[in-house]
């Protein structure tokens, strides 16, 4: 085996962040979150722990909804989805996310696709993991140009869910909704605190002696490179074969 691929660290980190969930939903075009969820499912199964259910939108194999595209949201509203992933063209220090575009709405330039289900799911899924591989000042801004979904809500607003963590290509942050703000939890191998600070457009708490994001152990890595990549290839063939090429390079 070659050394650990940076994306394998991201996948294993997602698996750790999902520990304890019964049902995780994954949006379309999200191979890394899907792999993290599949790795958790495989590890729980191996350990004889209660099963983890995964719903991948747009997949036939990993989707058991029968009531059309409304069912995911109904299911989340009922409290039956424990974790979900959201990204954003912009994410700010209060965990507000923007999936609509840059500049003055409505003439946003560039215009991005739109808010999808974020303006609802962010409120009702208990463990939302913000995931954005690109870690740059254009993504992590001081204040988003459009709030597709707010990171926190005023007291009295129905809010059973929200962000718990932000995972990027450089680091892992936790989110404290009481402050509100992000705290640096760990730096991925090969990345330094100064570099992360320069690439982040908002202020975050960084406790002394921030650790390294751990790499998966040998056994976990074998599971990820074998069974999980086989499962992932059904939904994300291109991603799975690219990972295999790079890991075996």
């Amino acid at each position, binding site marked *: 085996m070659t050394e650990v691929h940076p994306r394998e660290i991201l996948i294993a980190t997602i698996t750790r962040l999902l520990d304890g969930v019964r049902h995780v939903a994954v949006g*379309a*075009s999200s191979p890394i979150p899907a792999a993290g969820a599949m790795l958790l499912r495989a590890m729980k199964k191996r350990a004889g722990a209660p099963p983890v259910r995964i719903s991948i939108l*747009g997949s*036939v194999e990993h989707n058991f*909804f*029968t*009531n*059309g*595209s*409304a*069912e995911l*949201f*109904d299911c989340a*509203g009922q409290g039956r989805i424990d974790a979900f992933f959201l990204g954003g063209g912009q994410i700010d220090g209060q965990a507000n996310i923007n*999936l*609509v*575009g840059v500049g003055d*709405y*409505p*003439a*946003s*330039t*560039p*215009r*991005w*696709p*739109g*808010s*999808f*289900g*974020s*303006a*609802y*799911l*962010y*409120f*009702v899924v208990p463990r939302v993991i913000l995931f954005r591989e690109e870690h740059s000042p254009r993504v992590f801004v001081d204040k988003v140009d*459009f*709030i*597709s*979904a*707010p990171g926190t*809500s*005023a007291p*009295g*607003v*129905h809010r059973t869910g929200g962000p718990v963590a932000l995972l990027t290509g450089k680091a892992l942050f936790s989110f404290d909704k009481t402050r509100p703000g992000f705290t640096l939890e760990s730096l991925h191998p090969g990345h330094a605190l100064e570099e992360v600070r320069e690439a982040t457009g908002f202020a975050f708490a960084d406790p002394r002696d921030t650790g390294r994001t751990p790499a998966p152990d040998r056994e976990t890595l074998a599971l990820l490179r074998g069974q999980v990549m086989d499962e992932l290839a059904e939904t994300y063939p291109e991603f799975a074969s690219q990972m295999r090429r790079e890991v075996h390079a």
Partner: protein
Amino acid sequence: MDLRGMAARVEAGMQLALPVDYAGVSMAMTRALIERGAGDLDLFCVPTGGLQVDQLIGAGLVRSVETSAVSLGEAGGAPRFNQAVGEGRIVVRDATCPAIHAALMAAQKGNPFQPLRGLVGSDVLRFRPDWRMIDNPFAEDRDPIVLIPAARPDIAIFHAPMADRNGNVWIGRRRELAAMAYAAGQTLVTVERIIDENLLGSETSAAGTLPALYVTEIAVAPRGAWPYGLWGEYATDTAEILRYAKAARTAEGFATYMAQPAAGRAEEPAQ
């Protein structure tokens, strides 16, 4: 019925309900609509839009789009949509997926609105003056909740695998297609084939059937979702969508692309 005849039902200024890319998009109707040329259309995407929406915008037929997103999926942003938004040529009523479903659900029940959680404090809500926030009348303390008005599109258009000779349409588990049909004034459906067996004749097929009661017209269009896939039938032609995404970066490229015949679709059979 043929595609041209169905497209003739669409008048300028109508609101059209169109499904998400994986549910059964009647791409066969896109060119018929462009040929028909009825403009000032208001599109209602259930709950997001893609290639069909982008092509109708590129053809200059669209006045507004109500949607939770418009994209070409793995092929990236929707080029004609993005340019039209940047130039202010179309109005976008940005929504969120469950709000679109809530609007259809209200219409399905004959109700004026449907309440929906979430949204409070978002710019999605701030830019939707047609949505209202009230306090939950059943709560003891203040409990703000958003009301989404019922959507009643003039025409719903989608593609499905099959219909029977009584006009019943097989929609399987794609229940949003039924929701669109319940809410819309007319429903136009293209199908891969017409079957002789009555879809309501067995409990197994009846459960996934939209009864003819909600269906206005049906036309046969083999591979009618292409280049999108159709569940249980054929896969998405990703290479073709990428080819479109590249071509449609400019208005000229879009026009050239649309002037070519739809290569991946079988010719419409004689009725």
